[in-house]
């Protein structure tokens, strides 16, 4: 094998493109900013080391997410304890909201809504959180998610159905359903 600059460049571009997604996945798994940052860092380091073994037709995004998940699972096994349930007070969304001249009311409403969505997602079980993140935010296909989670596609769909049902209940007052008031989900 020879070193491929094209491969290095493609990898760096992919890591760059999926950086937010990796961080969000790490946050959803760990629910802790420090742990999430460590997970992303370790994922990138390991991905660099393994880039030579990556086939040209590989799905780089799924590959990166799989590495991150495996690292997290290994850490859990090593600790032999439940994951830390610590919600960060910090808000990185605010760091990126660089627009300062917008209507403060709109900014407040929009930020509050996003905060409520994040809080609702964090109340779900870890398997619900990750399937919501992977499908609704990262737009991975059911097959890609099944491969990543190492489970049948049907399981992914049923987990997603349960997770969405729970979210509908948690966010019922935020859902703008045309023609009638939103009601809580069955759960």
């Amino acid at each position: 094998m020879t070193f491929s600059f094209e491969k290095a460049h493609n990898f760096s571009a992919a890591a760059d493109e999926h950086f937010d997604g990796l961080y969000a996945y790490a946050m959803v798994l760990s629910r802790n900013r420090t742990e999430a940052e460590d997970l992303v860092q370790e994922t990138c380091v390991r991905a660099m080391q393994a880039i030579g073994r990556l086939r040209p037709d590989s799905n780089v995004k799924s590959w990166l997410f799989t590495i991150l998940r495996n690292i997290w699972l290994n850490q859990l096994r090593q600790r032999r304890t439940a994951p830390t349930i610590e919600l960060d007070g910090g808000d990185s969304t605010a760091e990126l909201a660089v627009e300062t001249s917008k209507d403060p009311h709109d900014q407040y409403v929009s930020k509050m809504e996003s905060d409520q969505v994040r809080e609702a997602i964090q109340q779900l079980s870890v398997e619900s959180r990750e399937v919501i993140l992977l499908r609704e935010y990262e737009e991975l296909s059911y097959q890609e998610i099944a491969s990543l989670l190492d489970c049948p596609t049907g399981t992914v769909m049923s987990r997603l159905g349960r997770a969405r049902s729970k979210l509908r209940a948690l966010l019922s007052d935020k859902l703008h359903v045309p023609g009638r008031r939103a009601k809580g989900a069955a759960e």
Partner: protein
Amino acid sequence: MNTCDKHRADILLYLDNALTGWQLGEFQAHLSGCPDCKAQLEEEQALSSLLRSSRPLYPAPDGLRARVAAAAARHGSARTLDPDLLRKARLQIFSQHVRHLAQRAFGWKTLTVTILALVLGVVFAPAAIRRTRATAYLKTAIATHRSYLNGELPLQIRSDSPEVVTAWFAGKTPFHFQLPTSPPTLGSKPVCRLTGGRLVNYQGSSIALVTYETVSEKISLLVASSTTAVAAGGEEVRSGDLTFHHRRGGSFNVITWTNRGLTYALVSSLSGSAQHSCLVCHQDIRAQAAQGGSFL
């Protein structure tokens, strides 16, 4: 299992446009006669819309990129090279043709890690942050267009009058923009027709979605402040002082550009070369922009 239970499982597939053929027909037929399933579908659509509006769920802190690059470099050098060797490698990499020199002087295994670390070090610099922001804006533009096509983003102002739509947005976004007073034309025929607009949330801020349509296609134009949104990457087409960035995103054709403090993303399913796609609108509107319109 009753009929509703059977079709509940189809709702997610329907939302993903994954139902086709007779399954789609059967589901739609059931939906038209079942208020409960219709109500659940509407709730699922509302949930999807709410989740999309909260993207990105957790944006990565900018500082993390720098830390990752530094950690990657440390990790690579610590595992494979002593510091003197690493310094020599870096000097040689930057001063000569890297690939040939690297393969002659060192083994590929050690240098792969080193070079990758250097590549990442460059990538995760401000230019990388710029590209990430460009990608985020691109993704938002595509997701917004898809939601608009799916009926999840109803227009808040419906008008084919640029003056009316411009006036509606005034004061609602943290930036000012003005639509050109007449649509772009190809020869003497209008390329598309303005249909209206609405506000869209982007990173906690309101930005503008302006919609157009041709005989067969709907077109979205996202307008945001260039302090928030960046146009970069893709196939570049230059015209005058402007640089258009043309990319395919899924089944969509996306063109982004920045002008006068605003960043635009035009999304459609229209086919054609980058050059043609960009310049059809641009050549015609350019004259108007020079007269005061801020479309370009």
